[in-house]
């Protein structure tokens, strides 16, 4: 599956079970829809039992209300076993935490999301989750 760019957001399937999202600028409804569509395609693949979402937000500047709603739907649907957000500024972290928190209130077992400063920490966490799933 090849990389897809919508606005300033790039979606790429970098390893067999990790979808990497490079989010620059503002995340709008079009970007959220693309993420949703890409995820739906991944879900249809029989070989991916556990999927991980890696979101690089170093260059993110904001997220609009429609995108928040769409991402909440995605979080509630739980297509990803875990999602890691890397490089979030404080405002972006608050915006994402609001979404994740609301999804958790509405659906008890929403996707677990964690924030990391570095790529290494995020991938280490994915490895740990994979390990836990294997045991």
């Amino acid at each position: 599956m090849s990389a897809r760019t919508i606005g300033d957001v790039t979606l790429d399937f970098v390893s067999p079970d990790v979808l990497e999202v490079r989010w620059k600028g503002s995340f709008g409804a079009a970007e959220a829809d693309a993420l949703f569509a890409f995820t739906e395609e991944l879900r249809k693949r029989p070989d991916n039992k556990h999927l991980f979402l890696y979101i690089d937000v170093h260059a993110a500047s904001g997220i609009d209300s429609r995108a928040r709603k769409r991402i909440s739907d995605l979080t509630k649907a739980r297509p990803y076993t875990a999602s890691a957000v890397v490089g979030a500024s404080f405002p972006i972290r608050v915006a994402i935490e609001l979404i994740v928190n609301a999804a958790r209130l509405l659906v008890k077992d929403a996707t677990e999301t964690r924030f990391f400063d570095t790529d290494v920490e995020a991938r280490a966490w994915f490895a740990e989750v994979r390990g836990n799933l294997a045991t």
Partner: protein
Amino acid sequence: MSDEATVTVTQQRIQRMIDVLSLISLDELDPALTTIEASGQTDVVAYLEESLNVFVRELAESKQDRDVHIARLEERSLELAAKLETIERQREAIRAMSTPVIELWDEIVTLPIVGTVDTERAQEMTTRLLDAVGRGGYRCVILDLTGVDIVDTSTADHFIQMMRSAQLLGAYCVVTGVSPEIAQTLVQVGADLGGIRTLRTLKDGLKACMQYLRPASAGANGEPARKR
């Protein structure tokens, strides 16, 4: 309470407010989820909690109003789309009725013209006429202007072009119903009717066409009879 006073508040109460704000961020305004129950306290945080309750309630009412308006707008938009579709269908029907090509007799068609003829209508009529002559095999065309009151330069030009196009396909063309006013206009605009017969009535036009189509052996007065 002085501005410097310190307020002690439990993590649980702060988290409850964050939860409400989280739900608001997703437009989830259900009072069952977003109302912070009164704690019985009257500290500054209780003021904050109650203020938040008021704003969420008002936001929910505002959202409900907005949703109603959007629903109405969508309904009107659908009604409008349906009306436009009806108008388009009627326009199509009117267009078909305003450019009739009527089979008058074997191999003879007539185009009764009523009202004004603009470029679009003239093109539509020409297309239908040429289709009738080309594919329908009609050999005589009568352009009947009985229903036309006024002819301007442009309309006259359209008629001439229509007849010329039919002639190119080998059709015998007759113009009928030419009133004195129309005749005067045609002369004034310098319309070249060479090769196109003009007659007073549709009946005269039909006679002329039948004569044209009559086998050579049966040829009579006036227009020479043609072989088919």
